[in-house]
């Protein structure tokens, strides 16, 4: 367990004890207890959802970052039409609630295309589209924060657009947007819980299914919260490590 998690243990214990003292509710932790054979089974069933949660979040964020970058670049273009297209994209996808997008992609799109998407694929598309609008704004801010002198120096040397982006602008911009990108990843991990509504068997879906069998919503959903907490602490620890690496090699990030 990373050392960062230790301070949280007393907090969780406190929560648990507070619950115990309430005489009107008898806790039934055995449904998810590792010391109980059925509990152990349930626990494994719940925890195995973590792979689905992580994989859908990772694939979605990757796609979303790429989309975000693609739509952030024209926003900075001197071409008005490109900038407008980018603006429309951002406004459109920023305004669709994720849950609505998930339902629309999973239930709606097949009616249009006659193509039934898998829950994973539909989930990725919906999450990535919604999130990409935010990524685009993050990248736009990052790109705009680079001093105009950097572009001018690159232009004056005769670098073309792609090289200017690849060697001068992006390496500097990515370092600056790493914290908000990490934030979006955390958000994506949580948002993946919405995919439970279309039956994607990730953490939340499994918890829902177990609740129906065991009638222990308090214990199971509490455990679910704990699962997300651990997952996200690990993720943010990873993002910080990445930030530190970028900061240490401060500059040496651009190989020609």
């Amino acid at each position, binding site marked *: 367990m990373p050392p960062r998690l230790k301070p949280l243990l007393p907090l969780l214990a406190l929560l648990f004890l507070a619950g115990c003292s309430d005489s009107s509710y008898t806790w039934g932790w055995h449904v998810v207890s590792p010391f109980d054979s059925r509990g152990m089974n349930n626990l494994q069933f719940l925890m195995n959802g973590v792979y689905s949660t992580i994989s859908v979040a990772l694939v979605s964020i990757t796609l979303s970052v790429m989309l975000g970058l693609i739509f952030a670049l024209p926003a900075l273009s001197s071409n008005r039409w490109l900038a407008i297209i980018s603006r429309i994209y951002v406004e459109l996808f920023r305004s669709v609630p994720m849950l609505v997008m998930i339902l629309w992609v999973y239930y709606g799109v097949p009616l249009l295309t006659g193509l039934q998407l898998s829950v994973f694929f539909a989930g990725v598309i919906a999450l990535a589209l919604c999130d990409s609008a935010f990524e685009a704004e993050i990248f736009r801010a990052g790109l705009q924060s680079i*001093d105009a*002198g*950097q572009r*001018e*120096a690159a*232009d*004056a*040397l*005769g*670098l*073309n657009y792609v*090289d200017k982006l690849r*060697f*001068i602008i992006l*390496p*500097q911009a990515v*370092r600056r947007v790493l914290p908000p990108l990490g934030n979006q990843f955390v958000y994506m991990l949580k948002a993946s819980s919405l995919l439970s509504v279309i039956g994607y068997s990730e953490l939340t879906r499994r918890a829902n299914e177990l609740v129906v069998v065991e009638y222990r919503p308090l214990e199971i959903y509490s455990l679910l919260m704990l699962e997300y907490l651990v997952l996200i602490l690990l993720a943010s620890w990873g993002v910080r490590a990445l930030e530190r690496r970028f900061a240490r090699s*401060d*500059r*040496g*990030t*651009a190989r*020609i």
Partner: protein
Amino acid sequence: MSGAALPARQDETPAVRLVSVEKTFGDYTALKDINLEVRRGEKVIICGPSGSGKSTLIRCINRLEKHDAGQIIVDGVEMNDDTRNLATIRSEVGMVFQHFNLFPHMSVLDNLALAPMRVRGLSRAEAEKTALALLERVRIPEQARKYPAQLSGGQQQRVAIARALCMKPHVLLFDEPTSALDPEMISEVLDVMEELARDGMTMICVTHEMGFARKVADTMVFMDQSRIVEMAPTEAFFDGAQSPRTQLFLDQILSH
């Protein structure tokens, strides 16, 4: 054009020629009827009060600003919206900025090697060889592996000069190369520039360092209110400026 009637001169084409160049920013006219011809090897120094359009003029030459009317011809090639010819011209025209505009995420060596590798297609070994030779020439060979932030202002500006030289430009543009420097660092940069001038580089330089101008310039240009008010050989310019505005400006600047 009337020039066609004159006997054809056997001179090579001028390095830079501006004919009736105009530039506006919205309602404001930043350049009015600018005519300037710079021979190969000629050193032109431009001075004038703040806001007179010196930077705009120099930035139009490598099209960091687009002029609105007139012609700018660099090495016999006219500057227009044809980007292919733009990249070529830019790589033939070096520029040194007031604020250096070095790439902070790259080592000094990479700052120098990037454009030769990407624009000229040199191998890393070739590019680094040229880079090291030029660092020698600007007298900081020992700083090759450092990053810009680790250098003094004077050293950074010398790196910037070396970076421009790496492209083996035909013309070097300087926009107030010493005005962001502490006084004790000005001379180390001016020394390097003087040496370049002696080696026959074509230079167009905005500066208020009149001692340097007297030593180096072939032609002095005085700008005021978006126009070239006076253009004269250096001796004549300093010994008896024609326009009272020039005289006033010189009196002010020389009395410092």
